[in-house]
């Protein structure tokens, strides 16, 4: 099976936020929740770069390590998913995540956060694939349809890459060699314990 990863080629990202919008629309994500976001580093300065970031579907996911109810699981494609039925909204995964991926419908005191929501790599949840129950809780399941995550699929500059880690790393490596520069595979070291060496 493939080892699915995201890779954002920041030298191509134009901060159009279409990935964010596509994600929200595809999964009908509630107001206030952003499964994906674009962060601009050194905004307004020479050499600023924008990076599209969501759950990176880590190797040895720290969210899964701290979850008191063990609601996370890793699929055969190495996608990190969770069960909203088991989630108690404690917020631990947010503090464990290196990417700020876990989102909550409410940001309140007394742990009134509600069930955690995060990027599913367009792979749904524990419910049966492509069912109404799955769609309501986790959004659409494109992976089950044989498609890759929408954010990467519709990225206008093909900055955001999704797919098998080895393949997207090769694509990125080729780009860096061809154009002669690259700001790095953002987040890979924190997520996968390795980076794309060129």
């Amino acid at each position: 099976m493939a080892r699915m990863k995201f890779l954002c080629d920041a030298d191509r990202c134009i901060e159009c936020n279409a990935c964010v919008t596509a994600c929200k629309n595809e999964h009908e994500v509630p107001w206030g929740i952003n499964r994906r976001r674009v962060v601009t580093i050194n905004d307004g300065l020479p050499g600023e770069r924008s990076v599209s970031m969501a759950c990176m579907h880590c190797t040895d996911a720290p969210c899964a390590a701290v979850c008191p109810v063990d609601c996370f699981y890793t699929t055969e494609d190495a996608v990190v998913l969770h069960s909203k039925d088991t989630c108690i909204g404690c917020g631990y995964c947010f503090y464990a995540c290196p990417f700020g991926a876990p989102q909550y419908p409410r940001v309140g005191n007394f742990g009134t956060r509600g069930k955690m929501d995060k990027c599913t790599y367009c792979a749904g949840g524990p419910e049966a694939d492509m069912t109404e129950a799955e769609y309501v809780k986790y959004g659409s399941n494109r992976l089950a349809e044989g498609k890759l995550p929408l954010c990467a699929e519709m990225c206008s500059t093909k900055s955001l890459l999704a797919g098998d880690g080895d393949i997207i790393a090769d694509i990125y490596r080729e780009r860096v060699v061809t154009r002669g520069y690259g700001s790095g595979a953002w987040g890979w070291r924190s997520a996968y314990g390795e980076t794309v060496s060129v």
Partner: protein
Amino acid sequence: MTIFTKMSRVIAVLALGLFAMIAQPQASQAQDIINPTAESVTEDALMEALNGDAQVQGRVSIPDDLSSGLIKPANRGWADTHGGPVRTVNLIAVVGMIVLLVAFYAIRGKIRIDSGPSSERIQRFSATERFAHWLMAVSFIVLALTGLNLVFGRAVILPVFGEDAFGTLSAWGKIAHNYMGFAFMLGLILSFVYWIAHNIPDKVDMHWLSKGGGLFVKGVHPPAKKFNAGQKGIFWSVTLGGAALSFTGVMLLFPELAGGEAGWQLYQVIHGVVAAILTAIVIAHIYIGSVGMEGAYDAMGSGEVDLNWAKEHHSLWVEEVQGKSSDGTDDGSARPGTQPAE
């Protein structure tokens, strides 16, 4: 061809030639000078500048400041601590204490009243004192069990009850934990006010401790006042540990007060470790106050203890109480009588 199209062609050619004249030297210059990534920010450089504890910060267009942190490598450190050492400390503290107590019970057995139960009983704790104790006790037990569920539930309860039941249990447990904390804090304050005067360490405690509290040898009963050194130890453990748990607990409940993610994570680790230690101490306290010692439970149960029990375990306190009542007045009015008006 009209004169106009001819003219426009001429203009276009002229313009093109002009553009080429301007652009050509610039293009050759550009290859020498401009490197599009010379000042580009790289992940490597940002990560190196982090010094381990901060985050790669940027700007987001969505109205949520929390999401402006791009990469927070330190969060994995907290995850490793919580999933590793904090769990281990909890395991050692709780299981270790239970093992110790079982061993103690096997060797020493139940500590009996050496001179046998008497027919007389004396008042040890008033109703208000017992209320403070039980308010704290009940809330602490709920807090400890729901807290331990967060640490060990996924390993112990989940395989037995299954995902649905365990999820429901934990969700209710979380609500109970979040609200019972305030009942515990009230009990903590009340017990502190009621008992602080009786819990100042003194010379009697040194002697009591040197005799091991008489816990390990049958028939040995070092003198003690209302609270012996062991009980003072419980008092101060609960007071200080409880204060630490209350403070960190409030910080966890109100994340904005905790001073960012690093602050919250620090309070969470302190909360988990102090809770483990205090739970172990309280397990020992529950043991000695119930199955471990004959007559001990009555003090917090009915509030009246067997006189022989009191003489054995709190000899100085019995002298004090009985001395007052033998001054000629009864218990209640003894106190004002012993205090001169001036």
